[in-house]
């Protein structure tokens, strides 16, 4: 027989003025298993806690019910107290007779009656409680950062500077991401390369950072503190251990294909560095376009290389490594506007550029060496139209969300045009101008004063006539149709998650929102974490944002990772699902229901009569399980149960209420 102690708190007059503690004490003494009952003015106070401790040793109590305020208030307090008494901290139940009784009811008799019910429910439940023990899991002191844009670079540097090992994984052949493509950054107009290249060099040289370019995540298993990640190293066909990055191989390659870094505005050979400042500063061969790898005759680059780095036999390899924490920093891509907007020519007109193409055009290291000229004829434009919200704020054709950075980079583009080509006429078609950021509104003001004409209205159609692009729309402030003949049009297109985000998040078990952005654990309070323990996020993989916000979030994610890796082991909550293997039929319904991929099917050796058999049963990973209990309600055989909230505990509560 259990020996339950019931302690009723007055909470000053908060409880006692409505609920009669004497009634509770009297009722408690009648209940089976209750060995002792007492009340006190403030149970949570030092003397109150001492009183409980004394009663435990005096009356040999083995489980405690406290009728007091909400368990959300003092459950942890009382659990800590029990730790020092020899009673398992989970042999505790709290009847919430303050927030859910004395504070919300007026009639004293009926409130007292309800308090008795609540106390009785807690006593019944605790009769079925069992000791629970927190497990500790070791932590691998190494972080994986996925994505080598500015978010990944910043997170990797912060973690590495704190003394932890980091693997920075990048799909392309160089880190740098989108920021490396930009010319200047708003609102301060510092040169993007000048502030990002030093950081790129740092990650390449940092003793704690291992840079893995041309790599992708192939598999993920394990849980917080103990992830095992399979990484695919794509064939580079160039031995980077020997290569000095001299660039001789690139000079004679006969292949010319569209440069992805310059977004089709220039060409590159098949053996190439992504861009001149690439880190690592070594080339790879693009196997889709290499004449020799496609089966033709060539091999010029191999002949040219003085060190014999070129290896046409190179193959993809898979490397497996262990990590304690993972940061997703996979960034964004621009939406494919030509497939969305037939009314803007659907990509037929050469002189319509995306915002990023314009960045390459205006960039001194870009295909035109920074001269703003039309791709069609190389002439400087006299009139430029900038269209905002292309693909964003357009649920019909594109994305419903605001892409957030476009208002500012549109203003920046206008400013750059007016600065480089004074006298150019610049029209910016907008729906709203959104400049919430430090120095942003001032920048917008300056752009207007520079002479950019803001026209409120979404452009309805763009077509080419007599070598010019006619932009037709409404000046909605005037209420009239307008038509602007432009020499160049810049479409400020929306961001969307990078390709492959769906595959990556499902490998990690992380959730995505309706627009495929990675879902943060809490939009306000946990913005740099996913709901999967040990998996964090940084930058535009979570939603459109500009560089300052991206860097801030990356450092936040890094701080979280450092906090985790600083511990050598961590405690997990013991209130998680448990499987009774004898009952489990191995149906696997629970596997699909678990939001954390904590439940898997495990093959075990079993006996069927005298025969040895192999069968599958559910297995709960205590590192992954968060204790929601969704699997237990779905379990047909009742093999799964939630510790601390076992079926029999809850049923006892129900029974106690109904009598």
């Amino acid at each position, binding site marked *: 027989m259990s020996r339950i102690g019931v302690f009723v708190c007055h909470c000053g007059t908060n409880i006692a003025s409505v609920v009669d503690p004497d009634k509770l004490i009297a009722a408690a003494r009648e209940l089976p298993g209750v060995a002792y009952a007492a009340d006190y003015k403030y149970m949570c106070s030092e003397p109150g806690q001492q009183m409980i401790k004394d009663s435990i040793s005096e009356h040999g109590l083995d489980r405690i019910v406290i009728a007091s305020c909400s368990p959300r208030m003092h459950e942890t307090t009382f659990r800590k107290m029990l730790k020092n008494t020899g009673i398992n901290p989970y042999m505790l139940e709290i009847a919430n007779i303050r927030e859910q009784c004395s504070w919300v009811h007026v009639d004293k008799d009926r409130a007292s009656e309800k308090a008795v019910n609540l106390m009785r429910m807690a006593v019944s439940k605790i009769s079925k409680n069992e000791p629970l023990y927190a497990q500790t899991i070791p932590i691998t002191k190494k972080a994986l950062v996925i994505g080598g844009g500015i978010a990944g670079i910043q997170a990797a540097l912060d973690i590495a500077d704190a003394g932890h090992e980091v693997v920075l994984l990048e799909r392309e052949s160089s880190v740098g991401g989108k920021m490396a493509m930009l010319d200047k950054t708003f609102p301060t107009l510092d040169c993007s390369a000048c502030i990002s290249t030093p950081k790129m060099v740092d990650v390449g040289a940092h003793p704690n950072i291992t840079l893995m370019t041309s790599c992708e995540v192939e598999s993920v298993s394990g849980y917080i503190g103990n992830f095992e990640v399979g990484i695919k190293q794509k064939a580079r066909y160039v031995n980077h251990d020997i290569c000095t990055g001299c660039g001789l191989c690139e000079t004679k390659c006969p292949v010319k294909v569209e440069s992805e870094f310059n977004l089709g505005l220039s060409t590159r050979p098949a053996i190439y560095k992504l861009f001149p400042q690439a880190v690592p500063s070594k080339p790879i061969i693009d196997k889709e376009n290499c004449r020799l790898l496609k089966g033709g005759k060539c091999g010029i680059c191999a002949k040219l290389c003085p060190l014999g780095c070129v290896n046409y036999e190179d193959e993809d390899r898979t490397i497996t490594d262990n990590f304690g924490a993972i940061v997703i920093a996979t960034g964004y891509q621009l939406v494919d506007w030509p497939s969305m907007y037939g009314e803007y020519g659907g990509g037929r007109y050469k002189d319509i550029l995306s915002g990023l193409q314009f960045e390459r055009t205006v960039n001194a290291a870009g295909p035109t060496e920074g001269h703003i000229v039309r791709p069609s004829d190389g002439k400087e434009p006299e009139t430029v139209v900038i269209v905002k919200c292309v693909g964003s704020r357009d649920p019909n054709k594109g994305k419903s969300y605001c892409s957030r950075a476009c208002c500012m980079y549109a203003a920046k583009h206008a400013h750059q045009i007016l600065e480089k080509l004074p006298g150019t006429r610049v029209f910016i078609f907008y729906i709203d101008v959104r400049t919430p950021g430090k120095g942003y509104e001032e920048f917008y003001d300056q752009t207007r004063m520079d002479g950019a004409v803001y026209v409120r209205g979404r452009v309805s159609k763009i077509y080419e006539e007599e070598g010019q692009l006619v932009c037709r729309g409404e000046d909605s402030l005037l209420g009239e149709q307008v038509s602007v003949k432009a020499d160049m049009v810049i479409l400020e297109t929306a961001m969307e998650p990078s390709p492959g985000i769906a595959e990556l998040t499902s490998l990690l078990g992380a959730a995505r929102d309706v627009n495929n952005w990675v879902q943060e654990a809490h939009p306000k309070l946990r913005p740099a974490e996913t709901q999967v323990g040990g998996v964090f996020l940084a930058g535009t993989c979570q939603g459109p944002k500009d560089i300052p916000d991206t860097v801030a979030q990356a450092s936040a994610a890094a701080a979280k990772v450092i906090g985790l890796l600083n511990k050598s082991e961590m405690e997990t909550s013991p209130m998680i699902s448990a499987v009774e293997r004898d009952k489990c039929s191995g149906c696997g319904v629970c596997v699909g229901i678990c939001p954390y991929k904590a439940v898997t099917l495990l093959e075990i050796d079993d006996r069927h009569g005298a025969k040895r058999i192999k069968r599958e049963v559910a297995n709960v990973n205590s590192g992954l399980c968060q204790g929601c209990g969704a699997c237990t309600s779905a379990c047909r055989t009742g093999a799964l149960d939630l510790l601390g909230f076992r079926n029999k505990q809850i049923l006892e509560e*129900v029974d106690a209420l*109904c009598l």
Partner: protein
Amino acid sequence: MPVEKSFEPAIVAFCCNWCTYTGADLAGLNRMKYPENVHVIRVPCSGRVNPQFILRAFQKGCDGVMVCGCHPGDCHYSTGNYFTRRRFMIMKRLLEYNGIDPERFHARWISGSEAAKFRDTAAEVSEHVKKLGPNVKYREEFRITESAEAGT
């Protein structure tokens, strides 16, 4: 059990720890008032509420059952309450099949900030169940079997 003049129903409310339980606590903090009939049982997630808990409550003569959790999409455990929603759409039919008025069962989404909604829901469900009268269906049958057993 004779029906008393002023019948006060016993209602059990399964509330998830992260949203509705917090909302109920907030109602207390704001000293909102609602009927005493509603007794909250804390569960980690509305997805933890096994249908058998509800059947057991009705079987034992509980007059009304509420299941409350986070709003769909806001679940602390990301997807738990979607299962709840699907499960309890079928629940109503199961109750009907068992001869229990499905009106005795209510599933609601109440967030941690919606104290007023918790108060209103508690009052509304309490009033509603009161009108339906005591749930004696299984209690009477129990009594019959019990006395029959006692007789033999």
